[in-house]
């Protein structure tokens, strides 16, 4: 609880009831359907979910870099320098204010470093872009700053690497360069969208350690988006599990692995094989696939795939996040008991 109060004081980011609609030829998609979370200073929040659950759209909405046909509603409050708590969604997507935040106070690391860099410019040139835009107009100074960050993220021989093109870098080195680019302005919040998915395990471990170290040095908060529970366990303080555009469970990392409650979270954790338990049962698998987020009926999004569903309860209304103690919040009638207690009294609360 202490932790909770401390967090209230210096929140860096607060997302309130974020909804995103996308107009398509077939109708309106609702990939994000009311997401709430907050990130405190120096905290790492893991946003976990499978592809298509809306985690990347959520992160891009924070920076206002979603495609034009994406309409975002709700509030994204960010503790901006000299603006105070600002609703990023209210800012003009190309306006002065958001541009002073984007890349400077909030920056992002993308999934595939090979795609994130332009092949036409040198690495140094691309890192310098951020430096020149946000820190100094002096090219000499900018280069110095950029080189300093490149060294900091562990790029050996930075002076030589500065003038090289992306194709001369390996995947791991390129990801380091991308991190350097994100950190050059000393951001308050770093959004890392699957930063290690495209990398080998050994390189992945290096990059994760690097990010942890840099977080200590720079004191920034990290929104860590991934589908890999192993990296979540290694990196995050708190975890929010997303399914079909909603957060279905959120808790401190240790708690969520020890005591997962939502059937989806349990399924996710159960379907990862733990080394050292060979020869045991079949892998747990969640039957079926994620439904398309269009014209969703008013019921729990996980209803079709859930093994704990309660007929007459879960299929008539959507559960909201409910406190279940220890900073743990779950959106599931089967876990927390449902409003119509008499109908599911037997199953409720047990799960």
């Amino acid at each position, binding site marked *: 609880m202490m932790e909770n109060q401390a967090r209230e004081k210096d929140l860096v980011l607060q997302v309130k009831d974020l909804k995103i609609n996308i107009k398509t030829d077939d109708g309106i998609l609702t990939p994000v359907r009311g997401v709430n979370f907050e990130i405190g200073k120096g905290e790492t929040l893991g946003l976990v979910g*499978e*592809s298509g659950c809306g985690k990347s759209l959520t992160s891009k909405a924070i920076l206002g870099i979603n495609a034009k046909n994406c309409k975002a509603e709700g509030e994204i409050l960010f503790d901006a320098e000299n603006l105070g708590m600002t609703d990023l969604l209210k800012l003009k997507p190309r306006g002065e204010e958001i541009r002073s935040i984007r890349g400077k106070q909030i920056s992002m690391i993308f999934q595939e470093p090979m795609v994130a860099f332009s092949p036409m410019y040198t690495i140094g040139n691309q890192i310098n872009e951020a430096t020149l835009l946000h820190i100094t107009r002096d090219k000499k100074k900018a280069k110095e700053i950029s080189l300093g960050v490149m060294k900091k993220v562990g790029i050996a021989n930075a002076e030589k690497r500065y003038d090289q093109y992306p194709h001369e870098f*390996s*995947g*791991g*080195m390129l990801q380091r360069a991308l991190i350097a680019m994100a950190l050059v302005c000393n951001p308050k919040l770093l959004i890392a969208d699957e930063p290690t998915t495209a990398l*080998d*395990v*050994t*390189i*992945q*471990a*290096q990059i*994760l*350690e690097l990010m942890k170290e840099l977080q200590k040095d720079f004191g920034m908060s990290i929104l860590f988006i991934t*589908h*890999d*529970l*192993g*990296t*979540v*366990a*290694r990196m*995050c303080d708190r975890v929010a599990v997303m399914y079909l555009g909603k957060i279905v469970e959120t808790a401190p*990392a*240790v708690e969520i*692995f*020890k005591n997962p409650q939502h059937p989806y979270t349990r*399924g*996710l*954790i159960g*379907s*990862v*094989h*733990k*080394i*050292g*338990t*060979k020869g045991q049962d*079949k*892998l*747990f*698998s*969640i*039957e079926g*696939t*994620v439904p398309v987020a269009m014209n969703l009926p008013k019921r729990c999004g996980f209803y079709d795939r859930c093994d704990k569903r309660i007929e007459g309860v879960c299929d008539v209304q959507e559960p909201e996040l409910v406190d279940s103690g220890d900073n743990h919040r779950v959106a599931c009638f089967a876990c927390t008991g449902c409003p119509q207690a008499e109908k599911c009294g037997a199953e409720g609360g047990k799960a």
Partner: protein
Amino acid sequence: MSEPKQILDVQHIHMRFHSKGVCVRAVTDVSFTVNEGETIGIVGESGCGKTTLGRCIVRAYEPSEGDVYYTAADGERVNFVKIDKKTMKKYRKEIQMIFQDPYSSLDPRMTVYDIIKEPLVANFPKMPKAEMEQRIMDIAAKVGLNTSYLKRYPHAFSGGQRQRIGIARALVLNPRVIVCDESVSALDVSIQAQVINLLHDLQRDLKLTYLFISHDLSVVEYISDRVAVMYLGRIVEYAPTKTLFSHPMHPYTESLLSAVPVADPTVQTERIPLEGEIPNPANPPTGCYFHTRCRFCTEQCKQCAPEYKELEPGHFVACHRAEELKLKGFDYE
């Protein structure tokens, strides 16, 4: 398994690619054997030659040197590398491949039915239509595809469903060996579990032999009976899965294992860092290929390449110091 019957015997395979006067050694002197009904995991970082090795075995590439002996269903032992293409066709049916990316390995302009039919048409052009249809229906049902959807195109299917199509296509010829090249890497965890369970069930029912190529060590540990670790085109260690994961004997295996993220925040694994990066296979280091990144490197390692030999029954290692080193692996319950 009472009497393990050898099905594949790979001996001293080399694969060199030449481009712009540079010779890239993708696979160097790889030897191992596979028994019938077994799953062999092949792990390593990207660029270590695991895919090339898989392709050499099915003869999608012509290996530069070496032999791949295959024991056919009728007991005949043939060398895939030496026989001509026509004879090879006879055996192609028995060894099939499942690819990594379910999005790019299926032709978007063919219906699923046609995709699964294609290998049948290619290998049994005289098969009656009705029999073909029967086989396609059977196999589709077996891999869990809804048979009423077979007239649809691949784009109408999700990633997991597409991978099932790829599996059906490989299985329709009743193969004995399947090379799975990163077959579950592109899938989400919950779907991954579905596909792995499916592969497991199929192996049990059809007595399949798998060569399972992957960089995901926990998946490999789950599915494999034996595991080969590759580094820079060579197998550095080959052992039964439990032995390899609990008592690795090669320093590279040890650091690879220590880097695996464990989905439990209370477990603090001590990572053994690997300095630097994989050397360029066009210009490999002298001596032991791993010496540039090895923390146990000696003068001997820099000078001469270690022999790949059986140190314990079934445990092959290529390291000068394998016997003296006490390396750490995972604890088994």
